[in-house]
């Protein structure tokens, strides 16, 4: 859409990219441990990260480039409904505060690297653990793909990659290069690379957002004018549906959707393997707790960022363009509003913001494959060094898979799969969080509940159409028995929970054989430095 390359912005973008690449490779020497061959080292950074490193790592991990592009894009498109991301992140931390410290403790005592490891140890069920692992890998792949979509949006606005008339190879060459570099340093440095790069990413993002929410409204005539323009846009009636295109505050009928989306997404957030990886990499239980109290700094940033969607409307981005790609709204807003050099910094923030989570996600998916498929089913006697080697190779394959997603599939498809990803990963909640508090649930009941949730959710989402697509067009549908419209993932979760409870009652009544529980009560409250940890099966980190 942009003709010609913005040279100043591109130069700055490339400079930052070169900087983080160098950091990525050097990261392998950062806090290096003696036993570099253990999967804990490559896949969890030696479980050694303190409060601040964890804060940057988790922030870099959870608030992705796609978030920066998609949340304001949704606001730009429909208004208030897109703002659910803010209550979602507000709810998330108090909620996970209750169970993440327990997950950290039990994982530390038993050397669990993935959530599926925990499920395996708690319920003694290979099947349930495999279900959790595959759900994690399945949900992560399109998420990585979306990070690439984020980079593509930036490159597009920068004018790199040729126009519509260049062939696909030239068009996607910059993306290939970015990805090859990312894959190389993730391979060599493991989780240390994104942890180090996250410092650059988060600093850039904070600077850009603060400048954007002060500078852009000044140029656009203040927030009053911005919201007026938005109200005007949303009141226009869509010819496709016969209803207004959006709204400035959520209407009566949309409140259930808003609340269930916020709650369901908050519950799903720390079920994602990459979030768990970030948590397990921290060095103590208290580090985890402290982080839940300081993570909202990122949520504030997200909230302010969401407002950029309104600013894009007021600035007339994409006005009158038929079928305008809303994902380009924020990059385009930056390019229109900022001087070129600052556009370069802003785009670097988004670009690096894609690299950090993509690295962590591929590591998390690789850990899942290695621990819960390879070691469990293919080579149970694998040594620690073999595990690490398999994980490194798996991280490459995961990225190739994600790249294929972006290049071969319709973008709309990746975005829809992301909606499905959240819905799917939420179905592991009962097994994981339930298991952290009680051993009451029966492993077979949990597996059945998971299956019901997955099938119901996928089937319901398949039936949602939107003007752009026939299937998987959204994430909300009528909740049976309530009659209101709500987040499908949440409805599926409730169904999953019901099935798990009812079947557990039945199976317990018939004395169905229970799996062996490796864990004991005290494991769930163990803290670094405790006696239990000194006897832990994992070599304690270098520090």
């Amino acid at each position, binding site marked *: 859409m942009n003709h010609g390359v913005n040279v100043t912005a591109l130069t700055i973008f490339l400079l930052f990219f070169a900087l983080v690449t160098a950091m990525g490779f050097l990261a392998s020497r950062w806090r290096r441990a003696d036993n570099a061959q253990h999967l804990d080292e490559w896949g969890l950074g030696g479980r050694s990260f303190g409060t601040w490193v964890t804060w940057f790592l988790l922030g870099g991990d959870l608030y992705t480039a796609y978030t920066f592009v998609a949340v304001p894009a949704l606001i730009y498109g429909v208004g208030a409904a897109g703002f659910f991301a803010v209550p979602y992140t507000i709810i998330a931390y108090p909620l996970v*505060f209750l169970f993440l410290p327990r997950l950290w403790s039990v994982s530390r005592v038993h050397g669990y690297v993935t959530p599926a490891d925990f499920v395996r140890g708690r319920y003694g069920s290979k099947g349930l653990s495999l279900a959790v692992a595959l759900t994690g890998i399945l949900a992560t792949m399109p998420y990585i793909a979306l990070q690439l979509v984020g980079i593509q949006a930036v490159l597009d606005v920068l004018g790199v990659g040729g126009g519509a008339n260049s062939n696909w190879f030239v068009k996607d060459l910059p993306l290939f290069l970015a990805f090859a570099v990312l894959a190389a340093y993730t391979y060599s440095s493991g989780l240390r690379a994104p942890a180090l790069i996250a410092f650059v990413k988060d600093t850039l993002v904070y600077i850009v957002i603060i400048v954007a929410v002060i500078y852009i409204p000044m140029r656009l005539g203040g927030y009053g004018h911005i919201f007026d323009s938005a109200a005007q846009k949303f009141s226009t009636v869509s010819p496709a549906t016969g209803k207004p295109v959006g709204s*400035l505050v959520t209407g009566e009928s949309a409140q259930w959707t808003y609340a269930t989306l916020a709650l369901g997404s908050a519950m799903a957030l720390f079920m994602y393997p990459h979030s768990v990886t970030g948590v397990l990499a921290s060095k103590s239980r208290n580090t985890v707790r402290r982080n839940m109290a300081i993570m909202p700094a990122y949520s*504030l940033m997200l909230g302010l960022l969401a407002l950029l969607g309104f600013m894009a409307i007021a600035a007339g981005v994409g006005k009158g363009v038929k079928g305008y790609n809303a994902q380009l709204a924020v990059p385009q807003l930056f390019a229109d509003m900022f001087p070129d050099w600052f556009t370069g910094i802003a785009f670097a923030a988004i670009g690096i913001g894609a690299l950090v989570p993509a690295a962590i996600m591929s590591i998390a998916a690789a850990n899942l494959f290695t621990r819960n498929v390879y070691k469990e089913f293919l080579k149970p006697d694998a040594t620690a060094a073999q595990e690490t080697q398999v994980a490194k190779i798996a991280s490459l394959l995961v990225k190739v898979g994600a790249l294929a997603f972006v290049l071969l599939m319709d973008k709309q498809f990746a975005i829809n799969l992301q909606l499905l990803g959240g819905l799917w990963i939420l179905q592991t909640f009962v097994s994981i969080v339930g298991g952290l508090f009680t051993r009451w649930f029966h492993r077979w009941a949990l597996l059945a509940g998971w299956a019901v949730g997955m099938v119901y959710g996928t089937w319901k989402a398949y039936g949602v159409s939107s003007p752009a697509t026939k299937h998987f067009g959204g994430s909300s549908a009528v909740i049976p028995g309530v009659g209101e419209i709500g987040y499908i993932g949440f409805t599926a979760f409730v169904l999953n929970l019901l099935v798990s409870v009812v079947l557990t009652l039945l199976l317990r009544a018939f004395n169905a054989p229970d799996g062996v529980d490796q864990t004991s009560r005290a494991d769930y409250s163990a803290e670094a430095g405790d006696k239990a940890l000194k006897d832990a099966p994992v070599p304690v980190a270098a520090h």
Partner: protein
Amino acid sequence: MSSSEVPKPDTGAPPGAIPAVTPERVLAGICLLVPIVAMLWVSSYTKVTPGIGGMPFFYWYQLLWVPASAVFTVGAYLLLQRDEKARRAAAEGGGPA
């Protein structure tokens, strides 16, 4: 270091003599629950007025809850910190000395 409302058990008492439900834990639970309930109660904030600096109520109210939720979470953190210290002290005091 045991808090005033949680008495230190006598030596010989089994570890975990402090009951599962303590005032600290209850208060921490409430601290964590407040922001969740506030955000799920959508009908309490779906309105345009009163706006601040041109920003409708709906937006500034939710943005305000971000730092507010952090304050509540810090509160829960401090309460649980106190609770765990008391438990550790009790467990050590109760162990074979």
